[in-house]
């Protein structure tokens, strides 16, 4: 399947890119790593007039500022996987990244690209939501920051507007005593999640994010001091009213079973270390 014809523009600066997107609207698509976009083009699922390659803009890199780690949007999954800073200060990302597809995809796919697409079964949306990272967005109007809790809206739907470019993601570093858990059930190693959970226990709170079971990652908060049976019971009833959807391989009912099982395991693991 050969991609339909398109024109190619590689801006050297962010403003150039923003002006171009503004001018061409829907006819232009942002190209970061291309691991999703180029596949959809090869499958002729979309036919933009322009691809705007933002890899020439310096949006790639991992930097520390006090208790914040900032990851540029075109930082690759592989960059994150190999970053000592991430391993030390953002352990949840380090737990998640080996589950992203395979090495060959990770060397080109980007964090920003993954968040812009917001595939409900992808790992990064769940992770940024679990950590309530700050998503930095630029447009011709200026810059704005959206917290992850406000960023995901629906199926492949985010707060990113037409003409905007996601430029970076800022995470609060983990504190001593924080616990992290990441688990994914997939049919084969590297496949999109059939169901997954990313969880952070920090202070007295636990943030669980389910992914692969709904149209977007689903946040659930709990009190760390609650006993496990009560926590489970509360989660089970909350799960009934969450928008869980089936897919090609699992019914919604089965997805709920998987979610409950992942929740149980997360609780057990997060509770294992005594404060």
């Amino acid at each position, binding site marked *: 399947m050969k991609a339909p014809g398109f024109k*190619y523009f590689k801006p050297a600066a962010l403003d150039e890119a923003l002006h171009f997107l503004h001018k061409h609207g829907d006819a232009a698509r942002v190209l970061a790593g291309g691991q999703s976009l*180029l596949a959809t083009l090869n499958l002729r699922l979309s036919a933009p007039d322009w*691809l705007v390659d933002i890899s020439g803009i310096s949006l790639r890199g991992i930097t520390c500022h006090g208790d914040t780690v900032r990851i540029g949007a075109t930082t690759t999954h592989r960059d994150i996987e190999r970053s000592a800073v991430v391993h030390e200060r953002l352990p949840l990302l380090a737990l998640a990244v080996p589950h992203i597809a*395979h*090495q*060959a*995809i990770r*060397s080109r796919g980007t964090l920003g690209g993954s968040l812009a697409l917001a595939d409900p079964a992808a790992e990064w949306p769940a992770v940024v939501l679990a950590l309530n990272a700050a998503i930095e967005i630029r447009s011709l109007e200026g810059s704005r920051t959206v917290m992850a809790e406000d960023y995901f809206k629906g199926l492949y739907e985010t707060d990113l507007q037409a003409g905007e470019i996601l430029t970076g993601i800022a995470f609060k570093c983990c504190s001593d005593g924080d616990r992290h858990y990441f688990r994914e059930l997939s049919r084969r190693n590297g496949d999109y999640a059939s169901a997954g959970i990313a969880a952070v226990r920090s202070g007295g709170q636990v943030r669980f994010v389910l992914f692969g079971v709904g149209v977007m990652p689903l946040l659930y908060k709990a009190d760390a001091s609650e006993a496990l049976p009560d926590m489970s019971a509360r989660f089970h009833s909350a799960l009934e009213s969450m928008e869980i959807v089936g897919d090609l391989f699992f019914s919604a009912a089965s997805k709920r079973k998987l979610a409950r099982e992942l929740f149980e395991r997360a609780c057990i693991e997060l509770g294992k270390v005594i404060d």
Partner: protein
Amino acid sequence: MNSDDESTVAVTFRLNGVDGTHRVQPRTHLVDFLRDSQGLVGTRAGCEHGVCGACTVRIDGAIARGCLVLPAQLEGADVWTIEGLDGTGELKELQEAFHQCNAVQCGFCTSGMLVTASQLVVESSGDTPPDRAQIREYMSGNLCRCTGYQSIIDAVKLALRAKGNTSHD
């Protein structure tokens, strides 16, 4: 490096150790570029959506899916295909191991397997040598329909040992 219409863009990169400037249509993916205009048929398209791994090449020291990369994106890049890596002799131990373990049948996945395995060899060190399960996981992004994968895992293990990079299991 921009195109006003759908016809070519000029891009300069190193291919198998040789610098060159190439005119490419933006939409042509790297596999088609290699096969159609460079005569490098060792890299193949098995699915064109990034899953099968038959198209795996090495770009800037990391493996990548050739079907999900446009030459237009490769300004200044360092690209290696099976032919180039074979020519440098880097694959010698792997090729010998694949041959000895009968890890090649129809051959269609073989280039991708070798390029992927060569990356594992590069990234393995004496400190953290991969065991059999880790080798299996590393190679799990490359589809083979002919073998049972076992001979491929055996071969990679054998090659790692030949290069002095494996644990004892």
